[in-house]
């Protein structure tokens, strides 16, 4: 009876009980996990860390003048300060067991600035999102959870759809891009990123690559199999992005992963008239100013750069400000420290 009662308890009571058990009985085990991760971090490759630190230092020195110029220009134009996208570096505890269902504990909670609904990413791409937040930790679920959904777009900006968990050939855990239109067919190997529609995930986070078509049976849509970039085994260190910021521009994080996301037609553009009405006066065509690719300036980078120089040409979102954290490039291990970065 008591066990059945637990199932029908309101969420706030269940969360309270779980949080109470975690902060008492399970506290030593969770602390042990944090200690184990810190211990592993001490044995990280010091030369690699030093090279990245040198690169960052050199890069920041080169950016210092740009930041002040940017601030002055924004002030002259009357533009308000662009809000940075914050993140919290954290470790993931995956308890395993039959009831796991793609959920995990994150060693960062409300005290660290983690919010419910925050996207969780790694240096390779999207992991999932935070579901519940407590004081010192939080609970999230990854893309293997049956409830995972993300609005997505191919990197060429042509194919929009919804990404959801799907069993691939041989029972492999994969994703499926559903609700796609028939008139666009992404090639095999095309990168799929979050589209930003719906506001759950910012635009431009890599999800996976197209590996094939599920079936042609459906007459009005195709389903594409996606191989996720982040496997569950690679989700030990994650970045929890901050709460969605209310900015005037769309948050596009593609540049942080070294991706150039093309602007394709919006998903509902087929419903709009293509040609202007005949009675409408012809508007003068305004040609965009030719874009100049700035030459890389500043000191030569010593190690592997965390932010590439060509991101500075990708628009306002690609240019980081001083103190603005940027997720690391693919192949760069995320920071193992549990510090909040704003």
């Amino acid at each position, binding site marked *: 009876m008591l066990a059945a009662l637990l199932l029908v308890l309101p969420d706030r009571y269940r969360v309270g009980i779980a949080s109470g058990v975690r902060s008492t009985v399970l506290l030593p085990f969770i602390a042990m996990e944090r200690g184990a*991760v810190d211990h592993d971090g001490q044995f990280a490759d010091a030369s690699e860390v030093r090279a990245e630190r040198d690169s960052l230092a050199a890069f920041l020195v080169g950016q210092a003048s740009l930041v002040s110029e940017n601030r002055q220009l924004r002030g002259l134009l009357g533009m308000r300060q662009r809000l940075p996208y914050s993140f919290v570096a954290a470790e993931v505890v995956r308890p395993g067991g039959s*009831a796991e269902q793609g959920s995990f504990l994150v060693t960062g909670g409300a005290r660290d600035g983690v919010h419910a609904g925050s996207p969780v990413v790694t240096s390779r791409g999207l992991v999932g999102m935070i579901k519940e937040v407590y004081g010192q930790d939080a609970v999230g679920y990854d893309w293997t959870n049956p409830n995972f959904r993300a609005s997505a777009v191919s990197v060429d900006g042509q194919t929009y759809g919804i990404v959801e968990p799907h069993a691939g050939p041989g*029972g492999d855990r994969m994703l499926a891009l559903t609700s796609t239109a028939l008139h666009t067919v992404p090639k095999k190997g095309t990168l799929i990123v979050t589209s930003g529609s719906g506001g759950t995930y910012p635009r431009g986070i890599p999800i996976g690559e197209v590996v094939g078509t599920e079936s042609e049976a459906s007459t009005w849509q195709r389903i594409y199999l996606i191989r996720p970039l982040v496997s569950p085994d690679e989700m030990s260190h994650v970045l929890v992005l901050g709460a969605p910021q209310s900015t005037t521009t769309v948050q596009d994080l593609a540049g942080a992963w070294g991706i150039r996301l093309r602007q394709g037609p919006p998903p509902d553009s087929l419903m709009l008239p293509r040609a202007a009405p005949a009675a409408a006066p012809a508007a003068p065509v305004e040609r965009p100013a030719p874009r100049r690719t700035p030459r890389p300036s500043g000191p030569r980078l010593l190690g592997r750069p965390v932010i590439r120089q060509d991101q500075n040409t990708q628009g306002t979102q690609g240019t980081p400000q001083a103190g603005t954290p940027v997720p690391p490039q693919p192949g760069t291990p995320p920071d193992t420290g549990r510090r909040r970065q704003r």
Partner: protein
Amino acid sequence: MNGAHRWALGALVVILVVLDLVLRVGLGLGHFVPDLIVVALLLAARQMRSGWAAGLGLLLGIVEGAVIPLTFGASALALAILGFLGSRSRDLFSGDSPIFLAFYLFAGKWLYDILLHLILLARAQPGSPSSLILVSPLMALYAAAAGIAAYTAYRTLS
């Protein structure tokens, strides 16, 4: 069951549960660890009354559910039912041989996965049905092997 056996059984349950939490949560080994909480419950339930076994299952389920809060309550109910059935199994099957014990642990662990799947299905949190056929039997075998090792050690020391 005399006092010494009761204490030994209690110690076995505590050791298995702590070992499970250390390996799965503390060291983050996750799926590489057999489900020692289910093993502890199944071993203890054979020597407990039905009500007590169900209560132990509820307690262990709350601890396990706290680690995975999204399914909190489901594992408690599944373990309570499993504890009850494990205790009642004494009326149907008697025996202490390793082969019987291996089968009992294998069936118990698989039954737990099925119960959990059904409860989560009722809560609109369905898992993968294919894992019940492909993964669960392997994990049940793993749990049975670990349970036999634990029980052998228990019998040797008690």
